């Protein structure tokens, strides 16, 4: 939950939407390989795009902007995701995601977010900490979308 985004959204009460499903362009929408230490998995059989959907849902819901009877529906698509392992000579580790939001009113918003972090030599610690930075990147993605001047146009 991003506090800045929440404050931003709270100014738009009354612009409620339905949040529809998020689709994915990823080959595997449930896990991602991590430095030969086995995959980083999603919990409880959730998909990566489903996690991104839930992050938007929680943020919009908390601000009172979700209404199941709203005539406007916003859906999403996880266009791409890249996980850089930050191995020596590769620069910092990073998560990069691009999401497209489509409103039933015809408006579209494409948002990308990258979160960099130190890779380090210890693969075990790296793969234990990487999910935390994934979550930070999703939060940054949600913040970037919500604070974009075009976001409110999706809700009307």
């Amino acid at each position, binding site marked *: *939950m991003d506090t800045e985004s*929440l*404050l931003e959204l*709270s100014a738009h009460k009354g612009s409620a939407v339905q949040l529809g499903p998020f689709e994915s362009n990823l080959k595997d929408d449930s896990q991602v390989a991590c430095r030969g230490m086995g995959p980083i998995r999603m919990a*409880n059989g*959730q998909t*990566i795009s489903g996690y991104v959907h839930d992050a938007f849902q929680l943020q919009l819901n908390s*601000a009172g902007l979700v209404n199941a009877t709203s005539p406007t529906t916003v859906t999403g698509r996880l266009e791409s995701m890249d996980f850089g392992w930050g191995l020596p000579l590769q620069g910092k580790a990073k998560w990069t995601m691009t999401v497209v939001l489509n409103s039933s009113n015809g408006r579209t918003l494409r948002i990308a977010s990258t979160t960099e972090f130190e890779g380090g030599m210890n693969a075990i610690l790296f793969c234990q*900490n990487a999910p*935390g930075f994934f979550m930070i990147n999703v939060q940054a993605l949600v913040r970037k979308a919500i604070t974009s001047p075009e976001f409110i146009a999706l809700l009307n």
Partner: protein
Amino acid sequence: MFARCGLLLLCGLLCLPAVAQAPAGGEKVAANELIDAVDVLLHFAKFQRLTVIGAGDDPVTAKERAALERFIPAILAKNGLPVPTFKVVGNDTYGSELLRMIEQSEAPRYVLAIQSSRYDRQTGIDMIWFEAKLIDRTARKIVWKLSLPWRLVESQPNIRAEATASHLLISMSRSGLIRLPNAVPLDLKGQPIENHTVFASDIE
């Protein structure tokens, strides 16, 4: 000779954390006046299990949590910053409760949200990072923020919770948001709170 060297080394290691007692200053992002009271929302997140995204547990133990819940509002009030409303929330209710607090008509102008934001695992040092954000209810803007480390070591939770509250107060004072009634924050018995349990690595 070796015993003396060992003693010196031991003293050096034990004394090292005390060198970094000064808390880091918070980041003031908007002009504001001195504040005389603050509502506080303390958030405990669940973090992912190892190499799993999206599920997990709160790594802060029940004793640590109880200490933070007790000492943060009490130490703030003891040092001249009353806390009329203090609430503790998890992930599901953080957003809605924060907005409810902001929209209360009978409330101080500022809400202090202390949100657990990151679980940092390092060799031998696991810690939670809390992000403290002071929100101006009228403008609905964050006017000051500070990162607060919490080491997951279980021992001395009360003393460490006092030090965390002290860290908040000193940083707010240095940012010109409050005026401490004493040179350093006092504990509930009126004694100066020592920051020896806040390690240099916590602050950086």
